[in-house]
């Protein structure tokens, strides 16, 4: 099958009513939680995991992906109108977006954010279509040593790219992996750390952990500091950017898309870092860098394009290798596994309907989002007026019901609350939850790959050094570890972004 027949096939899958509806529900819920502060895409996607039991695998993945890129759209709305990033990935959008709103240009800012996301989303889908098949071919030659080396590289990247202390990030990754060993041993199925209980034999659930770390703890932090919502009182008129806006935004948007996509492929990057780099890059390239932060439309278009393109890029390691490069993809990975589908090099061949269906659904989802976001923007703004005092009990209640409905076991609520408290403390003590969750999810794969490698090599770690692909990954890992020289220019660029203004 060449690309276009494949894509046409994908569209035929997506346009089936059930899948189309799943796509709509996904992007709708995504926009909703993107607008609402205090609940993000990761918590929402894990909340929806139990819902997907009732759906086909294709519809589930389409819906989950929709929530994620829908949230990216919705997050920018709050950044622009109230200077509160609905999602971390739209922090940068606050800088110029909010200033534009204050100058009465909220309409074009919202419009450009939506168009930028749409264009970047479309470009990244093209990227996936072009890159995934050849990568899949390469990935088919991977054995346990290659997988282990790749995971090692992934963890190294994740910890080195985490904001704040690297040592703390390493500690959290190890802790996550350690917690992941609770339950049955993946190879011999003997119980570990279960203390004779049946509840622990299944291990700790991913859903309660994620809901706790990303849902409950977020609400706790908001309750503590109090959320002040002040919707900018302005009539939003004329969402369409002017011809001048387009002229100024075209190149930044293109650069943001390419940058976001390429960075998104790398493990540990996520959607946040590309927005910062893209903003910094535009400021570097601009003839009037001093005017950034005063309402420049480039400062909205570029990072919004970058965060959407990064989403597309992040799908590549998941779809071709079965490895989750960030927490969002980890949830998506578990959605696959719930349906007994193993994402990876065999996905395109064994489940073409999922692969191409999801790819095509991203085009259609992007169109839906454009329709949802532009004319309905007034509705989303109204949502922002719901006081947090009413919102937070509801969010907490939904988390509890969601977790309970998945297993019917009160123990999972307790686990969720425990991790909620832990997550709250982690933020207070400046520990990042992301490496922990990622390691928790990938721990089993890591263990299997190293133990199988040792079995193959009869106990010699040399196997990691005698196979060219594995050795290459290890070499890159080493390079990442010893080369802060490569990272520091990027850091310096990041530092030039006046973060404090985003608060």
């Amino acid at each position, binding site marked *: 099958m060449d690309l276009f027949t494949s894509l046409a096939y994908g569209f035929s899958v997506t346009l089936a009513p059930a899948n189309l509806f799943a796509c709509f529900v996904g992007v709708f819920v995504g926009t909703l939680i993107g607008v609402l502060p205090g609940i993000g895409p990761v918590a929402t996607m894990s909340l929806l995991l139990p819902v997907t039991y009732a759906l086909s695998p294709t519809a589930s993945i389409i819906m989950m992906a929709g929530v994620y890129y829908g949230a990216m759209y919705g997050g920018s709305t709050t950044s622009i109108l109230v200077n509160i990033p609905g999602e971390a990935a739209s922090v940068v959008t606050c800088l110029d977006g909010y200033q534009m709103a204050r100058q009465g240009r909220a309409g074009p800012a919202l419009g450009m954010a939506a168009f930028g996301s749409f264009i970047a989303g479309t470009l990244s889908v093209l990227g996936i279509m072009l890159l995934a098949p050849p990568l899949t071919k390469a990935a088919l030659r991977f054995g346990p040593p290659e997988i282990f080396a790749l995971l090692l590289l992934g963890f190294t990247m994740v910890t080195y790219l985490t904001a704040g202390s690297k*040592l703390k990030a*390493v500690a959290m990754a190890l802790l996550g992996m350690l917690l992941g060993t609770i339950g049955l*041993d993946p190879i011999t199925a003997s119980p570990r750390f279960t203390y004779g209980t049946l509840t622990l034999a299944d291990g700790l659930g991913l859903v309660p952990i994620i809901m706790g770390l990303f849902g409950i703890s977020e609400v706790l932090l908001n309750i503590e500091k109090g959320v002040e919502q002040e919707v900018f009182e302005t009539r939003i008129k004329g969402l369409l950017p002017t011809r001048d806006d387009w002229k100024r935004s075209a190149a930044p948007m293109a650069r943001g898309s390419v940058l976001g996509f390429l960075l998104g492929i790398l493990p540990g990057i996520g959607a946040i870092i590309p927005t910062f780099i893209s903003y910094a890059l535009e400021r570097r390239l601009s003839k009037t860098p001093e005017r950034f932060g005063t309402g420049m439309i480039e400062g909205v278009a570029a990072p919004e394009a970058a965060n959407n393109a990064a989403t597309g890029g992040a799908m590549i390691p998941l779809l071709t290798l079965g490895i989750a490069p960030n927490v969002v993809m980890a949830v998506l990975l578990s959605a696959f596994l719930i349906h007994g589908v193993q994402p990876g090099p065999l996905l395109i061949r064994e489940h073409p309907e999922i692969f191409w269906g999801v790819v095509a659904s991203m085009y259609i989802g992007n169109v839906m989002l454009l329709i949802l976001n532009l004319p309905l923007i007034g509705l989303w703004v109204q949502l922002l007026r719901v006081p947090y005092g009413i919102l937070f009990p509801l969010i907490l209640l939904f988390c509890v019901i969601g977790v309970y409905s998945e297993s019917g076991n*009160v123990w999972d*609520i307790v686990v969720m609350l425990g991790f*909620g408290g832990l997550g*709250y403390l982690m933020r207070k003590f400046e520990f990042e939850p992301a490496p922990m969750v990622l390691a928790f999810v990938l721990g089993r794969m890591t*263990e299997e790959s*190293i*133990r199988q490698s040792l079995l193959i090599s009869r106990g010699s770690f040399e196997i990691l050094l005698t196979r060219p692909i594995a050795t290459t990954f290890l070499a890159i890992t080493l390079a990442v570890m010893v080369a802060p020289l490569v990272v520091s220019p990027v850091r310096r660029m990041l530092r030039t972004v006046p973060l404090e203004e985003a608060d």
Partner: protein
Amino acid sequence: MRRRDLGAAAVLLAFGLFALTQARGLRFGTVVAPGPGFFPLCLAAAFSLVSLGLLVRALRMPAGEARASSADAAGRAKVVGTLGGLMVYALVLEPVGFLLATFALLLFFFTALQRQRWFVALGGSLVTSVATYLVFKVWLGVNLPAGLLSF
């Protein structure tokens, strides 16, 4: 900052050492055929080492400035109240039932944590608990415990 980091590192180290003792109870196997204890033991050892590193680093940090104001204390009380309320809720959910427990939880949130007027709190709790019950139990068919109200 120093004391906070010190405390956090000490807790992590304690957990690491605990995990180490627990992992020793599992069969390690050999490097040729690693057993169930192989990976956890390596992880626990690495985790303890990194925690030790954090501890040493915190010790070498200059002593930080004293902080914590009364505003912090009020916020923290709210956090503890929310988490505590939810924990009690989780424990009584099955014996008491979803409707009653949820009503009580919301009433607690609205009165103790927010000081809403009593009729707002009462009405809000009632409407929300009944509405979520109808949506999740009746419409979506989620199995929520009936508890005391099972008739």
